[in-house]
Each structure stands twice: as structure tokens, then as C-alpha cells.
């Protein structure tokens, strides 16, 4: 598999996701600098977490206009799998590849802890091996919002990827860490080749992390 990880100057999960790809998918990704303008052939493009350009403005807003994002959008429109994690999810939303918005956590503070998510649609290239999984979140703006028309649309199209839940898979207010509407933790685009998610599967990818549930997302991509 030919994989690419986009590197913005303030990306800080680029190495972590590259390690996970190397360990699980088995190939070392090309690290693509944000000032580059083309990705020629790819089987997976990952937009990693971090603070792309500092995020002093709306998270991901500046990154969405960087030279490399034109190529990411072109590839996505051609059907290449594109995955945005955390800040990457914010960037994909700002780029228009995904619907909705990510606003400040309802607690108004940064949250770093393990949460549990449930795949809502397991018939996609990213989630065909997914199950109820534990993995960390680490964000200040992960509160997913969309208006009721948009929510209806993404629900009707099976575009919800993951929802926050409890150990038993129950989706309830108690298991919602950040105020996301309908506990949404991740969404797809219409054709399901673009995934954005707030949780960090690359931080739950080997036994030393205390949990390796995040592997199933990368393993799904292999099958």
C-alpha cells in the first residue's frame, strides 16, 4: 500500500501515525510537506493531529488553504482514501471534504483521556473490522455540530462513522466527552472514502499504550 502523511509545520501526531501505519499496514508512509503541491499516486492519505499553523484562528482554517490541500482534495474526489485525525478532522471540515463543524468542548477545556466509540457504519473501507473500541481523545475543539438538515442528511446517507458510547455500547449523555451532537465522534463523506475522527487510533495501536483497539481502523484498510 502506498501511503502518505501530510506534515504541517505544527503537526505533532505525524510521527505517531507513521509508526502505526508502518507497524500495522506494513509500509513506511511518505511524509508530505505542506508546501508541496502534489501527491501523485496514493492508496491512503492521512491528515494527522496537531496544531497545523498554531490554530490561533479557527482550528484548521489556515491549513485548509495550504498548497498541499488542493492535491488532497483532488485525490479525495478521485476516490483515494483520506483520513483526518483530530486536527486532521478539523482541517478536512474546513476544506469542505466533510460536513459539519467542530466547536469548543462543552467543558470549555482541553480533554485528554480514553473514551469508547462504536462504529455506526461497518460497511466502509475504514470500519469493516471495527468494533466497540477504547482509544484516547486529546482536543479542545472536538464538539461536533451540524444543523438538523445536515444531521438528517448524514444520517440518511450512513455517514456517521463513530459515536461515543459506554462499555456496553450504549450511546448516552454520560459517555459524551465534549458535547458532540448525537455523540458523533467521526463522520464520512458521501462516498465514504473520506473519514474524519476526533479520537486517536494511533495512540491505541500497541500493547504498551494500554489498549490496541485503534489497530482495527488500519486493519480495515488492509482488507
Amino acid at each position: 500500500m502506498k501511503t502518505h502523511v501530510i506534515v504541517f509545520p505544527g503537526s505533532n501526531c505525524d510521527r505517531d501515525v507513521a509508526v502505526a501505519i508502518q507497524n500495522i499496514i506494513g509500509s513506511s508512509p511518505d511524509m508530505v510537506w505542506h508546501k508541496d503541491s502534489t501527491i501523485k499516486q496514493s492508496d491512503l492519505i492521512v491528515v494527522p493531529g496537531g496544531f497545523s499553523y498554531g490554530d490561533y484562528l479557527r482550528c484548521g482554517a489556515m491549513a485548509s488553504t495550504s498548497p498541499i490541500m488542493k492535491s488532497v482534495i483532488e485525490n479525495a474526489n478521485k476516490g483515494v482514501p483520506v483520513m483526518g485525525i483530530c486536527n486532521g478532522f478539523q482541517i478536512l471540515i474546513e476544506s469542505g471534504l466533510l460536513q459539519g463543524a467542530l466547536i469548543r468542548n462543552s467543558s470549555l477545556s482541553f480533554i485528554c483521556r480514553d473514551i469508547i466509540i462504536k462504529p455506526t457504519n461497518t460497511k466502509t473501507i475504514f470500519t469493516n473490522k471495527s468494533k466497540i473500541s477504547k482509544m484516547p481523545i486529546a482536543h479542545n475543539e472536538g464538539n461536533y455540530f451540524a444543523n438538523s438538515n445536515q444531521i438528517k442528511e448524514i444520517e440518511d446517507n450512513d455517514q456517521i462513522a463513530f459515536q461515543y458510547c459506554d462499555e456496553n455500547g450504549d450511546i448516552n449523555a454520560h459517555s459524551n466527552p465534549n458535547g458532540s451532537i448525537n455523540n458523533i465522534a467521526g463522520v464520512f463523506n458521501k462516498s465514504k472514502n473520506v473519514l474524519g475522527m476526533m479520537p486517536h487510533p494511533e495512540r491505541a495501536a500497541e500493547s504498551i499504550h494500554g489498549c490496541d483497539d485503534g489497530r482495527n481502523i488500519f486493519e480495515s484498510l488492509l482488507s
Partner: protein
Amino acid sequence: MTSSNWQFDTEKSLVESHGLKLDEFEKIVEGLGREPNLTELGIFSAMWNEHCSYKSSKYWLKKLPTSGERVIQGPGENAGVIDIDDGDVAVFKMESHNHPSFLEPYQGAATGVGGILRDVFTMGARPVANMNALRFGDPNHPKTKHLVSGVVGGIGGYGNCIGIPTVGGEVNFHPSYNGNILVNAMTVGIAKKDKIFYSAAAGIGNPVVYVGSKTGRDGIHGATMASAEFDDDSEEKKPTVQVGDPFTEKLLLEACLELMKEDAIIAIQDMGAAGLTSSSIEMASKGNVGIDINLSKVPMRAANMTAYELMLSESQERMLMVIQPKKEELARSIFKKWDLEFEIIGEVTNTKKLILHMDGEEQASIPINILVEDAPEYQRDYIVNDPSPLISFESKDFEDKDILSDLLKMISHPNLCSRKWIWEQYDHMVMADTVVRPGSDAAVVRVHGTNKGIAISTDCSPTYCRHDPYEGGKHAVVETWRNIVASGAEPIAITDCMNFGNPEKPEIMGQFVECIRGMGDACSKLNYPVISGNVSLYNETNGEGIYPTPAIGGVGLIRDLSNTMTIDLKNEGNVLCLIGESNNHLGNSHYLSIIQNKEDGGTPSVNLDDELKNGKFILDCVAKKLLKSVHDVGEGGVLVAIAEMCISGMQGIKIDITKDFLHGFFFGEDQARYLVEVSQNKLEQIEVDASKSAVKIERIGEIGGTSISINSIGEIELSSLIDHHTKWFNEF
């Protein structure tokens, strides 16, 4: 008034407003052979303040043990360096940002993190972990909440953005910090042994390069402010606090590490306290050379900045380097890639002077040795007060006290309750190498790409130090040592942050001297040297000083991460045992302060032989795979430690012991003790091993159920423990 008197008064107030004493000013005039101009006066002020010159502490700091088999670089560089095998080194230091954090908690704490990160990556290391040691005033003091929120926000805001995990720390509340909070930040980095960078300038004619952010007017006189007491008008000092930009620091980190892969850097120094002044002078002094700087070349954020402002600004995210002339274009291209300033602002000279020009005119010319070697050094008067007397408590004093309800009060107190609310605001998992998260005895991070790890712990008990600075100094060192042992790591070395009041007061100086003596004895005995650190004096407001607080940051090595230990109880049926002697020491304990609102009875003494013996025993047991979990018995005593292990592992325990003085046993703070979880089939072996090593071991109870139950006393459900443990911060 004659004109000469008038001149004298203006001069006097100018000198004093620069934090210099009149005799220090006379020393400057004598050294220069003339009066300094204003820029030069500013430079002397920046170099000779307490924060930069260590003038009150230097004499005593030299008494600390600083060398050892694994020490590659001791105090004196940007950070200390230890050998962690396989050609790898760990680089670390802790530094205070107390004064600015009180004035402006978010930016003060954020730039504290930024500063210590730069100290570490200046040495060629990639930072892998941040830690901190925080002290706030009375939880009910009107400022405390604002300060806690600001400091936690600032630490998280900086660390989260730059992408270095904040893996642990400690927080205490005490009224002695009402007017002076303490924010001590520590960073640990990893480098290759043959790729360590130092700050000594060399090579006459080589270019001196400025990189990073532009220079603005922020933080002027920051270091001088940090060397003075506060009073009611301290709010006015807010403009001396710098403003942090973690995104630019991330760029600077990556650009510096990229350039360090090339053979381009001869010397590098971060611009921290006293900015361009201290960085250029330190580089020249260490290299025994001179430096000429053309200040017109310094990248400026504001218009019409003067030489004085440029030299004293503490704008953040800047570095000074001496580079190989042939590598100039390569270096420039790397900094351009990262969108950072890169400007040759001067050159290394053989004059042994700092010479500054601006707009074609000479602005300053000072021999380096006057600034550095001839800097004032004081052996201040000190008085050592007798330690507070020991009180021997007896069982009958506690007959009307209920152990379980006292336990609930203790674990819900701000000083002993869960810190989850704090560390969940820190990204403690970025870099994906965090092995032991916050909340255990020591944090453990993996050395990337290997199966070994670094264990880190910060600690200090100011109450112990206040009532017996010698034992308190020993305690601060051994507490981190024990925490590292409890994580399964071999303790290697420490960094320290010496936070004290006004050293011109003999009793404060006495606290300093005795804490140093205690630390030195502990470090020597445990072969646990001091490799870096920082001193913060004048932590006083309106003449009231803080408790003596020698915060220690310890680092250890776990060669095989499968031997990592945590505090959470693992399995039902296993047995919890106590290692070490218990002598019911309740003096200055959390029990007395929380339950009886008393602070007396004497500090527990630290027997260093026992510490060494018991710690070695724990590590032997770890190596033999005899233990399932380990917890150091520290603040609050045995029962608080048991409660923490139960909460962490979501396991109950049936405690079955017979003691004459249960309060003393459960809440006493005797030293050199650990709780260990052992499976039934290893119990006999560990008891035999303990007896062979003359280590005391006693069975406390069997793990299982959903409550802590104590024979003949009663039980508390885990859910109730958790509610009490998390309540205070959740309602914060």
C-alpha cells in the same frame, strides 16, 4: 540642594530601579574604569540579579554532589545530561517561573514551559516529556482559583500545542503561597551521546546568528523582576511578563533539530532570562572569547527599539548560535523552510569583550570577565533554627476518632484528592510513547524505537522543610527516588528548583543552607547526583516568605519496559504487603493538618540506609517478577496509599491487621516504605527474600471485593471513595 546631590539622587534611584545595590554599582565603575552608560547599566542589572548570577546561592550549590558514572554533563550548561545506555542520553532540567506566573498565570506558566523546553532542545535533545511542580495558596483564598485555572491552562496550552506530553507533576496548597505561587516546569529530552550541543563560542571571526522570533518590548527586566519581592503594587509589574507562542517554538524546535543533524553548529544558547544579554555573554564567557553584535541587524517586532530594549527584552522563542561560516547558506535555508528569522548579527572576536553597535555607533563595551567572573557572590549570614520538637502521639489521643471517616476527609482534601481534573487538560499521550500516565508514582515514557523507558517524578514536602529543613531536604530527594523505584526504574540523577524567600534574612538563608545539606547527604548516599537546576529567591510578599520549597525532579531508567510497575491493584486474591518499618510518626503529617488543623510534632526523619536497603529490595523483587503493583507510602500514610491503589485498580481489599495504635499505623508518615501486591504463590518467596535482606515485610490484606474493609472497624465502598477523591476538583 546642590547640583551634585541632585545628580547623586538620580543616579541612586536609577541604580536601585535596576535592582543593583550601591556597592555593586561601585564595583561596576571600578571594573570599567568609568561610569556605565544606560545600556551597560541594564546589562549589568540583567547579569547581576539573583536570578541570573546565583550570587546568594552559588557558594552553597557547589556543595551538592554533581558527578557520577552516568553523568555526562552536570550543572552549568543549559541542561544536565545522563547516559542511558546504547549511545542514548537523557537531557533534563527543571526551572521556576514563579514571579511571572503570579502576575499573569496563563502566560507566566506557558512561557515557563517554553523556556525549559528550549533549554533541553538547545542541547540537541528532542523533548519527550514535560513535568511540573506547582504550589498555590489556601484553596479558599480569593486568588487561588484564578491562579490554578490560569497556570493549568498555560502549561497545557503550551505543551499541547508544541506536542510534547505533560506526563505528570505535583500540586499542593498552603497559605504560605498566598502571595507567591510556585510554578516549576521540567523537561526531559533524548539525544545521542555523540550529538550533544554546548554553549561555548569558538572560532574568531565566526558568525553569531540570531534565529527564531522577532524581538519586541515584552519581558524587559523580567529577570530583575523575578529577583525582587512583591508588594501591594506588584500588579504594575505585569508588563515584565513575556507572552508565549508555542507554534513558533515548535518551528524553532524542528528547525534546530534539523540543523543539528548537519555539522554546522559550533555553539548554541537559548535566549531565556535576560535574553540577548545573557545568551551572548554566557557563550563568550564559556568560550573565553569576545562577541561583537550589530544591534541594527536584530529582527525587531516594534519600531524604534533602542539598544537598551533590545538587550533586555525577554521575547520568547529565540536562540543564539555560532555556526561554521561555510554552512551559513544551509542553515539559512533550514530556517527559511520553517518560516523563522535567521540573521547574522555579529561575530566571535578575540577581544574578550561584549561590544555592541547600533546605527554605526558604539553602544556598549564591557570586558566579559567583569560581567561573569567578577559578578558579586555573597556568603550571606544565616541562622539555623532548631527543628520543631518531636511529639510522640499515643493511641488514647485518638480514641474518639473514626478511621474510615477520617480517610474520606483526607482523600477529599485538596492536598490529597485526585489530580485528574488537572492532567486531563494536558495532552499526556502525544508522541505515543507514554507508558505510565499521570496518577502513578512516577511517569514512564518509552525511549522511542526501543524497549527501554525513562521514569520521572517531581516532589517536595514544604511542611517538612519548614519544620526541619535538613530532614525536609533529604526527604524531597528520597521521595522522588522512591517514586522512581516504585515504577521499577533505577534512579539515576536529579534536577532541583530551589524556591525560597528573601536570602538577606538570616533565617531564610538558614533554611536554604540546611535544605542543601540534607539534599547533598541524600544524593551522596543514594548515588543520585544533581545534574542541573535553578534557584528562585525573594518569593516574598509584603515581607512574608513562602515555606522553603526545594522541588526535586528525579529521573530513572527502566532497561526492560516489561518490568514497569504501577500503583493500580491488579487481581483479586493477591496479597498486599507493606515493606519497611512503621513507627507511627504523625508529626507534621497530612492527618494532623487535615483532621486536626495542626502543624507540629516534628518532621519524620529519613534513614538513608533504610531507604537504600528497601529500595534495592523492591528493585530485586521487580527483576524477579515477584510484584504485581507497587506504591510508595508517602503523603497521608499507609491507608491513603491503599485507597489510591484501590481506586486506581478498581479493586477492593480486606485489611486484616492487629495494631495497638491504628491511627498511627494508618496515617503515620514514616519513611522508606512501599506497598506491594504479591500473588499468593510468590508470597513465601518474597517473605524469605525480605528476611534475608533484613527488610521488614508485613501482610496487610487480601485484594478483592468492592470496598476497603478493615477488620473490627468497618468498610467503605469503592464508589464512595471515588466520589470523595474526585469531588473537589470536579466542583472547581
